[in-house]
């Protein structure tokens, strides 16, 4: 049977060649600009990790003896390896037979055994970050131990060989388990796999944050068992590097050859397991679950409303329901028991509120945020009923509100009760509980609004929600942490800004969802964009004010001015690119790059202008009043040019709508401005808004506010 199959190495070559071409084509021609930038950031991220581990292991090398250093490395490497193994086990391509790609490949003369071998080997090239999962740690250690280029090469080889082993083991275990689990119980197995995967990632998160944040503490924790760990079989994966440091290249090569032999054995075993699995039930893996068990609605309740339909769908899909509830608890729980320790429990109601809100936000990220993806095939049904889209989405929100607010409140109560030391007459307790309820409810509505805003349902091959949408959601959801952690005016300003943002995102999202199926839909500037820009400016300013201890007031002013300048330039660039229709083509900055390549004199002028602007900015920002002037420009670009203009364009049909547009933008601007809350500050905002509404130009508002500041 296998002899008729094309050889594994040939299959590896084909998989690598065409997968790389497919990925490159997708990156070059498809995807939104947001996805591309996320891709670029993902490419740069490992460099950051090398830097972080370099710093952590630098501390470890300084404070720990040699066996403790080795033991520390072994623990970190094993944490990474286990997380990687579980993710391979639960997400292996080979395990589910019924996927489109597997059916495509298996209807060619390709045996399952050869496919498993080919995938294990091809993963070393195709799963780039998976293959280099150990590299940031090992490269940082080899630098700290001064092992030079050879150390880097050994780190690289170790990581790649381990990746091959892990893919092989993951696929073997997955296939082996499938052969022993009945069809009816595979849904349970899938749920367990999902939970295991979440648990391993969360554990890794806690472990990594422990090492990176408190390397001395980590060393102290490892020290008592250092010699046992360093001499255990677990040290096998770090031995090539350790031996290179102690005994030189030749013994290191022997250990690498051992790892290579191990990889060959694991791949061979995987091929045997796959050969045994083919024809013993693997073919049924991936069958729709309803084909394996009869499913009937048990009883008839009241007529199905939109909210009840959402609840029934959620509750009937048990694996999704369990994962949805368990995963946020796993993520947050392991973090609590990891680097942060028990500080959260002992931190009072505010800390408990933060934890409860984080859980609600996680739940919203997993549940209502990707709702358009889940419903992309039936969205036309929702669109074809004689009910407004807003009504349908509100029904959806109501169903999720119960779950998300419930989880928020229950986890707050549980954390406060476990932490102890609270008094029922403590007003902070009740204030925080109220904030948790409001924040959890709003994060649910925000998730549905952003899901509607980002939805692109015209192309089956593209996800309805890209990574850019998820990050935007996390940024806005993160804003509410300020309300939970801060007191006084800042907390209430944050709540007001958050509520206004949620309302604007919702209103815009409902309107955008109407065109979700249209591939040629235009990308206008929306009130949601205005709200996002406002949140970005607001969060940046307040993070700078919280930031680095030891920064002088003047330095802080400079950083704030640079941030304001960046937001101004970014905002103007965004407006320009939308107006030119570039956002619709999904490549916001590419036309700029082509213009840059275009003419020599333009480059010279561009560089000169950038130098002058940077010089002027630096000169200006040395003086605090000038910083305030730069901030005025940033605020006017965000509040007026993006927010107010989009609101005026959005709500322009009646006189009341126009007044509402100006009124809301004034309120948002008043909440988000750096100026203290006062009647003159409010008056300034009103006058600036009226000046902009009358002229649709930034000049009167900017000049007016600058004059107010100076005189």
């Amino acid at each position: 049977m296998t002899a008729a199959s094309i050889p594994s190495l040939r299959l590896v070559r084909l998989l690598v060649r065409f997968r790389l071409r497919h990925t490159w084509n997708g990156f070059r021609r498809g995807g939104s600009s947001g996805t591309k930038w996320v891709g670029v950031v993902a490419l740069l991220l490992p460099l950051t990790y090398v830097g972080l581990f370099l710093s952590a292991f630098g501390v470890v090398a300084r404070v720990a003896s040699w066996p403790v250093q080795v033991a520390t490395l072994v623990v970190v490497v094993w944490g990474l390896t286990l997380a990687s193994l579980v993710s391979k086990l639960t997400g292996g391509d080979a395990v589910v037979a019924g996927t489109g790609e597997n059916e495509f490949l298996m209807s060619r003369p390709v045996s399952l055994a050869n496919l498993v071998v080919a995938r294990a080997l091809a993963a070393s090239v195709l799963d780039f970050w998976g293959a280099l999962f150990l590299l940031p740690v090992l490269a940082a250690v080899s630098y700290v131990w001064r092992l030079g280029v050879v150390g880097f090469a050994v780190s690289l080889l170790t990581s790649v060989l381990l990746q091959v082993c892990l893919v092989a083991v993951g696929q073997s275990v997955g296939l082996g388990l499938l052969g022993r689990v009945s069809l009816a119980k595979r849904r349970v197995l899938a749920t367990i796999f999902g939970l295991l995967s979440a648990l391993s990632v969360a554990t890794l998160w806690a472990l990594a944050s422990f090492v990176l944040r408190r390397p001395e503490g980590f060393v102290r924790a490892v020290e008592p068992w250092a010699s046992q760990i360093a001499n255990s079989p677990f040290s096998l994966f770090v031995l090539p590097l350790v031996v290179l440091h102690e005994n030189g290249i030749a013994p290191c090569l022997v250990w690498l050859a051992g790892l290579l032999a191990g990889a060959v054995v694991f791949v061979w075993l995987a091929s045997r397991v796959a050969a045994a699995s083919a024809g013993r039930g693997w073919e049924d893996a991936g069958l729709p679950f309803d084909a394996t068990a009869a499913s009937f609605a048990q009883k008839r309740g009241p007529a199905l409303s939109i909210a009840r339909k959402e609840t029934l769908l959620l509750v009937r899909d048990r694996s999704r329901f369990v994962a949805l509830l368990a995963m946020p608890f796993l993520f947050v729980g392991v973090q609590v028991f990891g680097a942060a320790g028990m500080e959260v429990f002992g931190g009072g109601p505010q800390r408990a509120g933060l934890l409860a809100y984080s859980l609600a936000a996680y739940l919203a990220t997993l549940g209502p945020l990707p709702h358009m993806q889940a419903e992309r095939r039936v969205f036309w049904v929702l669109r074809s009923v004689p009910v407004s889209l807003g009504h349908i989405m509100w029904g959806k929100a109501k169903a999720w509100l119960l779950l998300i607010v419930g989880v928020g409140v229950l986890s707050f109560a549980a954390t406060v009760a476990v932490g102890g030391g609270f008094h029922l007459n403590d007003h902070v307790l009740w204030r925080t509980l109220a904030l948790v309820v409001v924040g959890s409810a709003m994060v649910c509505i925000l998730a549905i609004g952003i899901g509607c805003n980002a939805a692109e349902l015209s192309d089956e091959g593209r996800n309805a929600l890209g990574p850019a949408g998820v990050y935007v959601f996390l940024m806005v959801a993160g804003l509410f942490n300020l309300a939970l952690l801060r007191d006084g005016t800042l907390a209430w300003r944050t709540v007001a800004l958050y509520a206004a943002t949620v309302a604007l995102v919702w209103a815009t999202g409902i309107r955008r969802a109407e065109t979700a199926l249209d591939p040629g839909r235009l990308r206008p500037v929306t009130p949601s964009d205005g709200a996002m820009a406002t949140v970005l400016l607001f969060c940046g300013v307040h993070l700078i004010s919280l930031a680095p201890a030891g920064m002088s007031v003047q330095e802080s002013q400079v950083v704030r001015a640079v941030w304001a300048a960046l937001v101004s330039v970014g905002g103007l660039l965004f407006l320009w690119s939308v107006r030119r229709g570039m956002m619709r083509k999904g490549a916001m900055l590419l036309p700029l790059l082509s213009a840059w390549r275009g003419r020599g004199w333009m480059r010279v002028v561009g560089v000169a202008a950038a130098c002058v602007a940077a010089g002027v900015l630096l000169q200006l920002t040395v003086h605090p009043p000038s910083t305030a002037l730069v901030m005025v420009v940033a605020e006017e670009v965000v509040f007026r040019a993006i927010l107010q203009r989009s609101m005026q364009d959005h709500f322009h049909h009646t006189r009341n709508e126009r007044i509402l547009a100006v009124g809301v933008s004034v309120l948002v601007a008043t909440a988000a401005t750096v100026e203290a809350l006062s009647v003159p500050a409010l008056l300034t905002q009103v006058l600036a808004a009226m000046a902009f509404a009358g002229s649709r130009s930034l000049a009167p508002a900017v000049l007016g506010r600058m004059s107010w500041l100076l005189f």
Partner: protein
Amino acid sequence: MIEILALSKHYGSKVALDALSITVQGGEVMGFLGPNGSGKTTTIRLLMGLLRPTSGLAKILGKDCHTESVALKRHVGYLPDEPFLYPYLSGLEFLELVAGLHGFSGPDARRRAHDLAERFIGPEAPRFCMTYSHGTKKRVALAAALIHDPQVLILDEPTNGLDPMAAKQMKELVSQLARDGKTVFLSTHLLETTERLCHRVAIISSGRLLAVDEPANLQRLHGTDGVGSLEDVFLKLLAAAGT
């Protein structure tokens, strides 16, 4: 050429296929008719070795479809109902990949892919598969099924979802394949297609075979007073079977 002997497939307690037996001769076009959910796609997946039979046997060219599935795929072409295409590969690249999977070397794979792309996809061949219409996707998948010049073709609903023009082109392609002497196992629920293209027709319902014969014989045996269209025969057989 194709032998299906008492083939059954159960999904838990649900019987998808119940002791199905059909034989298809070399060079014959066999229509496989049945309503939705009657077991047509399950039969085809069993023939392609993509599913494990609960009992019974299926053979193509004398090779067991389950235990020798890899070897027989060198001689069988398969067009699935909903073909999988890589969205960011062009039709030409996709055909090169399929040729490679069938073991053809680089230049040979390229030549075969080019020839078939010219014949089936035309000027759209260099474009990404994600931009193709449903009809073009089906044509790409049919080209992929033919790239190794198979003796046997298994086509699952080849005209499903196609507009009249594309459906007509697809039917002409299948006719041409029959004239070229290929053995074709054609699953469909379009009676007109079956009547025009097939030498014999097998009708199944709820996983059981109701009748298998030439269209004219079916009309004579099961039509009202020996006459009537294949549609009448089909509906009469289904009614008799209680579906």
